[in-house]
């Protein structure tokens, strides 16, 4: 056995061991740094918390609506610029008159189609005057928020009213900032779309790959 083979074998093994221990190609984790989730992203509080009471706060004092309106008459038409309540911008489509909703004589109530009063804490009856299909869906539960228990025999259920999501003076649901997007291993980061690349939603974008591929 004068063959040089018997020296090559241990040498090859030693080189193997050396390479394995040296680890010349270190592992680069594709796991991106954690993006903190803002607290509001998991907060189930409705976007509005209406008082459901005919109260008005001015100069640090809280008034009942009728405290003033019992004495001070308001103009019948409200197309003209308001002198009071100027913070209210009425942007409710073709519904441009205050007294379409507010009761003309009892300002602590709303008004229905027949001039009768709708209590302040039942705003959905007021909205139902015009928004019939949505009111129907809200009653049946396919429109609007429901919180708590689906099985009402096991716990309470809260059915949110219209004005807990919609501002009656400007009803479209307000835009919100989006919560952080996905940074998961298989959903990755945004691809180099600005360079004309077609985005593959399942493609893995490691942090380094991403910066390299955009240049």
């Amino acid at each position, binding site marked *: 056995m004068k063959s040089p083979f018997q020296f090559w074998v241990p040498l090859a093994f030693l080189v193997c061991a050396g390479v394995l221990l040296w680890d010349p190609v270190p592992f680069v984790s594709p796991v991106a740094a954690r993006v903190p989730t803002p607290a509001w992203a998991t907060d189930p509080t409705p976007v509005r918390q209406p008082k459901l009471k005919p109260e008005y706060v001015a100069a640090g004092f809280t008034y009942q609506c009728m405290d003033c309106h019992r004495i001070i008459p308001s103009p019948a038409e409200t197309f003209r610029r308001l002198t009071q309540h100027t913070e209210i911008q009425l942007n409710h489509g073709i519904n441009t008159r205050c007294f379409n909703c507010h009761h003309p004589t009892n300002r602590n109530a709303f008004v229905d189609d027949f001039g009768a009063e709708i209590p302040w804490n039942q705003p959905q009856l007021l909205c139902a005057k015009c928004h019939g299909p949505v009111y129907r869906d809200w009653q049946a539960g*396919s*429109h609007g*928020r429901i919180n708590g228990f689906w099985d009402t025999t096991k716990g309470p259920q809260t059915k949110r009213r219209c004005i807990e999501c919609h501002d009656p003076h400007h009803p479209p649901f307000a835009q919100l*900032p989006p*919560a952080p997007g996905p940074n*998961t291993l298989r959903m990755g*980061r945004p691809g180099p779309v600005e360079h004309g690349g077609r985005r593959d939603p399942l493609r893995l974008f490691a942090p380094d790959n991403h910066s390299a591929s955009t240049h």
Partner: protein
Amino acid sequence: MADVNPVANHSQPPPGEAGVSRRQFLGQGAAVAAGLSALAAAMSPLRHLSDDDLPSVEEFLQKHYKEMTPADKERALERIREQVKKRYGVDAKVSDPPPLDGVEFVYGLNISRCIGCRKCVHACVAENNQSRSPEIQYIRVLEMEKGSIDLETANHHYDPDQVPRPDKWYMPVQCHQCANPPCVKVCPVEATWQEPDGITVIDYDWCIGCRYCEAACPYFARRFNFTRPEIPKDEINPNMSYLSNRPRSKGVMEKCTFCLHRTRVGQLPACLEVCPTGSRKFGNVLDPNSEVHYILKNKRVFVLKADVGTLPRFFYYFDERGSRYHEPITPDTKGKELKEGA
């Protein structure tokens, strides 16, 4: 060139003498020693293994969920409680709520109302003890051009200052709890199955992590734990159950379970609770008074990828009149509808 001559090779060492020469002994000994050192070097990453990475004997001998007796289950739940206490320092309430009689869960999602705020995504992560690093999310919100439903070009990385964008619409996708689930059919070890209330669950202790189910799912609803999930101790949800949100280990699949630890005791799922627009609807479809029953009966409903025959229990619906974000109500547009209608 004696080596090429077999006769010369055989003559050295001569037959009958003690087998190994000194030179051979040293040469072969060096080869064995170097081989062993290479093996040790190759296996050296194993030194990073901790106790948590290896299953305990009890865990190793644990039976499949469906074969466990009530006593076995109680032992398994106790073991999970201890593991959670050890790993996260939290006294968890680990339960195993059974499916309810006469209940089949169905989910409805109103795409006319969804604004794509992604609150459902994060509420789900917090509720279900998903890994924060690497991130695992069950819900994926797709942003698409209005007037199209092209999933190929849908974007889940959208990040404008405000949502919804006027020319886009949003479609959250999560597990559809199919009545004909392809993920269940492909599992080689029956670690995933459909429960009587329609929820497809996974026994995390039985899953071998082959990811066949992930490949089979047409909705990309299943997630794999490539590493040990990392969850900060103060963010653990202590309300856990065996089949849903108990902490998972490395190398197993996980998926949305309609929050069965909540829904099987009558509560609504976390994604629904947090939705600011009320786009998400959940309930028992067998109850004729439930919201989902009303939606399926009266609203215009569709399922995603109906052509693949999975029979989802997750329905998208829309309203007679959709979102009006494309025409913001401003003083300029006041009375416009009156004129158009006249």
